[in-house]
């Protein structure tokens, strides 16, 4: 740890690292260094988060009045559609894998880079291209189909920019696929000597499980959007009953990807939590192998439950039965993880820096969100709750209360490693608290709204629902403030934050053995691993 000295702190890192190795826009836009690519992604996903978040702010302002306070219904429909598309495809899915995964996977396996650095850069350009198509569709009139693009509305009836956004998401899917492919090959083939599968940090297991889903699921979305675009352009009848097509076929194809997609969004966050908890409890994770197998189980089972989005479509009740059973089963590994994280705290030595606050917040909110999933897996209650604000609340608890908090926790945990700077912990802790409170205020009332019967995607609503809507919008204001604060102090820290040491948190893991920030080649010599992961205990730790 740093000792007090009378010398003034140096203002910039003097040793060579990946940030100062080269200057100029070309060194960034043509880089093949996974760490620089991670930063390119970080800037891009933040940009899209702001866009998607702005749409959400507009929506919540609009919903303070039963008749709608801000925009015409057609505009509102475009707002919720683009909020969903941008947040899911351009923020949540890339966030942890493309920012933290890209940065950390080579460091954690003890390699100099990913298996295919040029593919990595290509994946970022593909992401940006897809993003541009989507932004174009937003500017050129917007899309009003909902991010789920149900046919025949999207294929035959909507006259908005369906084709453009379908192309945008189609293109971005390849970014996902290439990232997943890169991670799978890297983890299989580039682990340092001594780094066996069961010595890997759990973040790597999470990245691996996520990559399996990315690689298997995303191509199905691609073909679905391809068929949708063709249908929208040529009206051939694949999904249109008037021409012999089946609108439900679209839903099956769409959800076959989009359900596993939610596990793409949550597994990485779980991986982050599995890194933070041992570090800030200074204790090996409880049930390491169980958590590994749970991650893989979630990835596999996640492909078998898509029909639970279609319980009220008139599909066979026996199909409903099978999907309901499997949906309950997929909840079990997640529950097991929550218990293991909690058990890790037992007899630990717990400190409360910002990353830990985000990780603990994740556990609480993910638990609530996951339990509300049981209401939806159960056939009889899903009939009442489907299509209402209960669903909206459920998935926001997992995606925002879970995935976004996981992302923020990860950013705060690895910030010193990525930027070589520390941020002010007091502000970070305050922001975490504001996010936690604001989040609950925003989304808890929506459970009640849903049970009362308020459907989702309503641009105006019966007056009896107003009080709960206003509560939710008030919460959204608090939540927005909570997200703005880190934006400010994190940017501030890049210039004015105190320089970080190689391992400011005293964490285990190969990434912490490098300088903060690391040199371009990560390791002068490929390390040899001799310890289990999370070797925090005195008899294991080689010493600080």
């Amino acid at each position, binding site marked *: 740890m740093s000792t007090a000295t009378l010398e003034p702190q140096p203002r910039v890192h003097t040793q060579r690292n990946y940030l100062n190795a080269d200057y100029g826009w070309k060194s960034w836009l043509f880089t093949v260094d996974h760490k620089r690519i991670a930063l390119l992604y970080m800037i891009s996903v933040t940009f899209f988060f702001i866009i998607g978040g702005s749409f959400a702010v507009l929506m919540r302002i609009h919903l303070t009045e039963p008749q709608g306070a801000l925009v015409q219904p057609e505009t509102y429909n475009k707002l919720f559609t683009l909020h969903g598309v941008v947040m899911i495809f351009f923020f949540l899915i890339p966030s942890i894998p493309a920012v933290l995964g890209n940065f950390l996977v080579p460091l954690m396996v003890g390699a100099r880079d990913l298996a295919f*650095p040029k593919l990595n850069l290509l994946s970022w350009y593909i992401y940006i291209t897809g993003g541009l198509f989507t932004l174009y569709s937003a500017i050129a009139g917007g899309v009003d189909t909902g991010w789920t693009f149900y046919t025949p509305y999207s294929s035959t009836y909507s006259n908005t920019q369906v084709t453009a956004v379908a192309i945008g998401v189609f293109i971005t899917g390849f970014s996902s696929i290439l990232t997943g*492919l890169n991670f799978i090959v890297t983890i299989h*083939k*580039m682990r340092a000597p001594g780094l066996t599968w069961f010595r890997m940090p759990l973040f790597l297991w999470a990245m691996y499980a996520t990559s399996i889903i990315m690689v298997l699921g995303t*191509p199905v979305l691609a073909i679905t959007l391809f068929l949708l675009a063709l249908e929208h352009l040529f009206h051939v009848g694949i999904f249109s009953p008037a021409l*012999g*097509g089946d609108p439900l076929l679209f839903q099956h194809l769409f959800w076959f990807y989009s359900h596993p997609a939610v596990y793409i969004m949550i597994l990485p966050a779980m991986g982050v939590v599995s890194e933070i908890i041992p570090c800030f409890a200074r204790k090996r994770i409880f049930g390491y192998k169980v958590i590994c197998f749970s991650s893989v189980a979630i990835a596999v089972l996640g492909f078998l439950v898509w029909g639970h989005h279609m319980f009220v479509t008139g599909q066979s009740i026996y199909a409903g039965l099978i999907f309901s059973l499997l949906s309950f089963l997929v909840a079990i590994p997640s529950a097991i993880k929550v218990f293991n994280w909690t058990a890790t705290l037992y007899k630990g030595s717990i400190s409360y820096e910002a990353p830990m606050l985000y990780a603990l917040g994740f556990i609480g909110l993910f638990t609530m969100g996951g339990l509300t999933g049981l209401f939806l897996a159960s056939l009889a209650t899903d009939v009442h709750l489907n299509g209402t604000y209960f669903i909206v609340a459920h998935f926001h608890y997992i995606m925002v209360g879970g995935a976004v908090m996981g992302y923020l926790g990860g950013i705060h945990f690895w910030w010193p490693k990525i930027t070589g700077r520390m941020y002010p912990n007091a502000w970070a802790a305050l922001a975490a608290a504001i996010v936690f409170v604001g989040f609950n205020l925003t989304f808890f009332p929506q459970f009640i709204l849903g049970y009362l019967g308020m459907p989702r995607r309503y641009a105006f609503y019966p007056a009896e629902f107003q009080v709960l809507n206003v509560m939710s919008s008030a919460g959204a204001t608090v939540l927005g403030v909570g997200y703005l604060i880190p934006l400010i102090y994190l940017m501030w820290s890049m210039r004015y934050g105190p320089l970080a040491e190689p391992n400011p948190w005293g964490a285990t893991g190969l990434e912490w053995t490098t300088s903060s920030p690391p040199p371009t080649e990560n390791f002068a010599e*490929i390390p040899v691993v001799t310890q289990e992961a999370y070797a925090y205990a005195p008899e294991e730790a080689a010493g600080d």
Partner: protein
Amino acid sequence: MTDSEAHAQDAGLVHQFENLEQQQEADFLGIWVFLVTEIMFFGGLFASYAIYRWLYFAAFEAGSHILNAEIGAANTMVLLGSSLTMALSVRSAQTGNRRALVFFLIATMILGAIFLGVKAYEYDQKFVEHVVPSLDWAPEGEVLARLAPGGLGHAQLYFFFYFAMTGVHALHMIIGEGLLLWLVLRARKDAFTTHYFAPVEVVGLYWHFVDIVWIFLFPLLYLIGGRY
């Protein structure tokens, strides 16, 4: 950025790998993972096709009989031939035979081009017969008589799948031609050695995969319900 000065037999080694063996294993795992994604991609198309064929068999059978199975079969042989030349080019690369490598790569490209040319002719025929969904759908005469019993709307669905599936396949072949050209240019500059030939094998795997997709497409589209 290469280590080829130090290790002559590591020509082609890139900086993130310790040795050519690791690099090659990574390359091969990478292409297999990519081919799995392609299986899932085509899989969505095949699944949709299967559902509509099951629902509207008569229309699909009628549509299939409009196609010329003999041309389709000949084209299949052409593509199989190109897989043979591709395999021979990989063998040539493995044995360090640069002339044979370039020869077989070009032969593969030519056979692939023949396949695409025949496909273009078949597509043109569909315009002549006016059975192109949405763009030129006006079947007449004998074609109309064949398609009407199963329902013209469903026949249009069949032809949609015909164009979508063979079109996506053709797109993959065009990309393959580009990859082959890249290999030819690299081979002529002596980029490949008996130790470093992974790119040839990787492209070979891709080419064989595209070939296998056609092996499935041909009976599914051209041979529904048997002939005569």
